[in-house]
């Protein structure tokens, strides 16, 4: 078990290694399940890695500790990325990963907080997670441990009006313990976000709503950590981190592909993907 200090001292290099391991575990899991959102999960797995393995205070052996930081996967279809992080952190066993999307499994197609240890909110219906996260932030604002709440949103998800209702209320309540991270990969199901229904300019929109907003490269761990620190240091308003990402990141044939939004790799695709990921490790 790591101390808070050890966890926080993990550098970009170490986090990148964890993220690569998680990508490998996740692709195997998705292949076994035969369905699931590969591109959407690869897109945000670096952000989730930075949160669970550096930024957030959380203790899997004391998962219900009220002072813990919370994470809400508002884009619930990226559940596989969350599940492998929860497994590595110690919330669920390795064998559990073999049961993704099965009838009696805690790993449902979309996160189920009543069933899966470590899942803070049930999601899957887009647009709701930021409100739920803000509710947590409001409930926790006087907690002596000053827990923080993180919500991960899709860029297509920003089309839901409720996101902007939550953006308004979080600014109104000066909820500085709330941090929204937008997985800005430029794609949604039907195609390119800018063509389906543009959400630009994202950072300026959040700023106009009264948020502290910054834009980063969502696959650069140094930038992710820096942005999370900037969010912590902003004490009068919520922070939105607009993370420029690549949908399918890390597997060449999944990258920037609409087709890979919601499908799992077959055997050949899995071995090609694993070759790429382990190759980059120099094995």
């Amino acid at each position, binding site marked *: 078990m790591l101390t808070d200090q050890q966890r926080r001292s993990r550098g970009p290099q170490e986090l990148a290694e964890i993220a690569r391991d998680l990508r490998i575990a996740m692709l195997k899991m998705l292949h076994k399940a035969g369905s699931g959102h590969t591109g959407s999960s690869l897109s945000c797995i670096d952000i989730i890695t930075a949160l669970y393995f550096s930024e957030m205070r959380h203790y899997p052996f004391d998962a219900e500790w009220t002072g813990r930081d919370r994470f809400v996967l508002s884009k*619930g279809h990226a559940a596989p990325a969350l599940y492998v992080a929860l497994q590595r952190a110690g919330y669920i066993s390795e064998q559990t990963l073999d049961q993704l999307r099965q009838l009696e*499994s805690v790993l449902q197609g979309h996160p189920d907080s009543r069933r899966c240890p470590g899942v803070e909110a049930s*999601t*899957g219906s887009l647009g709701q997670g930021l409100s739920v996260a803000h509710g947590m932030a409001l409930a926790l604002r006087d907690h002596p441990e000053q827990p923080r709440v993180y919500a991960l949103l899709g860029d297509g998800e920003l089309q839901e009006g409720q996101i902007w209702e939550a953006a308004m209320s979080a600014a109104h309540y000066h909820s500085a313990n709330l941090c929204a991270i937008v997985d800005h990969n430029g794609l949604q199901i*039907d195609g390119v976000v800018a063509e*389906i*229904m543009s959400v630009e300019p994202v950072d300026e929109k959040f700023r106009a709503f009264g948020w502290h907003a910054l834009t980063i490269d969502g696959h650069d761990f140094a930038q992710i950590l820096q942005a999370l620190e900037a969010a912590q240091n902003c004490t009068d308003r919520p922070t939105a981190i607009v993370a420029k990402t690549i949908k399918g990141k890390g597997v060449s044939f999944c990258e920037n592909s609409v087709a890979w939004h919601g499908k799992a790799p077959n055997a050949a695709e899995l071995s090609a993907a694993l070759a790429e990921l382990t190759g980059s490790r120099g094995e």
Partner: protein
Amino acid sequence: MSSRILSTRAEYGQTLVRLGERSRDIVVLDADLSGSTCTNAFAKRFPERFFNMGISEQDMICTAAGMSLAGKIPFASSFAIFATGRCWEQIRNAVALPGCNVNIVATHGGVTVGKDGASHQALEDVAIMRAIPTMTVIVPCDAVETRKAIEAAAWYDGPVYIRLTRENLPVIYDEASPFRIGVGSIVRAGDDLTIFAVGLMLHIAREAADLLQREGISARIANVSTLKPIDASLVASCAEETGCAVTAEEHNITGGLGDAVGEVLLKTHPVPMERVAVNDAFGRSGDPKDLLRYFDLTPEAIVQASKRAIERKHALAARAKDRKHATPA
């Protein structure tokens, strides 16, 4: 009868194209699921009359309402959970209350959505749509009936909700089969009970009727695909002629087909009735077939329910006979 198995949502997309060719007033809206709902067929053919609203179902519904107020015939689509649940109040107040001619065609109803799990499996959509005054609710059982229902909805003046499945379904109707909103049909003759079924469960009911027949029980099957306004005279006459009823639906037990049929029976012919539906639960991830089994939406479950209904019918008859023969004290 043919044994073709066809996608009802693909049929929806094709029907939209044909409707679009017939009338310039047909417009189609979707919320980032046009590949799954198959409205992309229309988008390809008539890009200027297709509006992808992005992931914003509430905006989509009210936009459709506005289009209808300006003379268009809108079809708005998404998954059943999002097309009804996310924007229920918009449907009630912006569409139905002013009497807008908006057609909401939702795909992915029920548990057979499969592995995406509970958040994506609408089991309440029929109930909440039925609860809205003036709303027409249709659950077709095959591609032919889907096409006819979509066409009927297009020319029908008023709000319509049509629920389709993700799964492909066997085709039981042919071109000559009539379809009218509010008119049900008997798809199998029988005298011992009537199984009222819609959508995917109509096919499960047909399997159940085969099983029952092997045990000497003759089950009538009635398709009441228009759940609202339901074909009350068909429901009543079936109840009168067969003396008991079973309902079968891929929906929660509250507010759907069971209640729609039950309401008619209570008023006309209160005969014993049993319901096959999801027993007040949320869905979950799994293969569609496994999920149907898990939630007891099987031919066997319908057989059991049928036997219970028949037993109750016989018990009632026996009691009535006893009363008749009892000599007054």
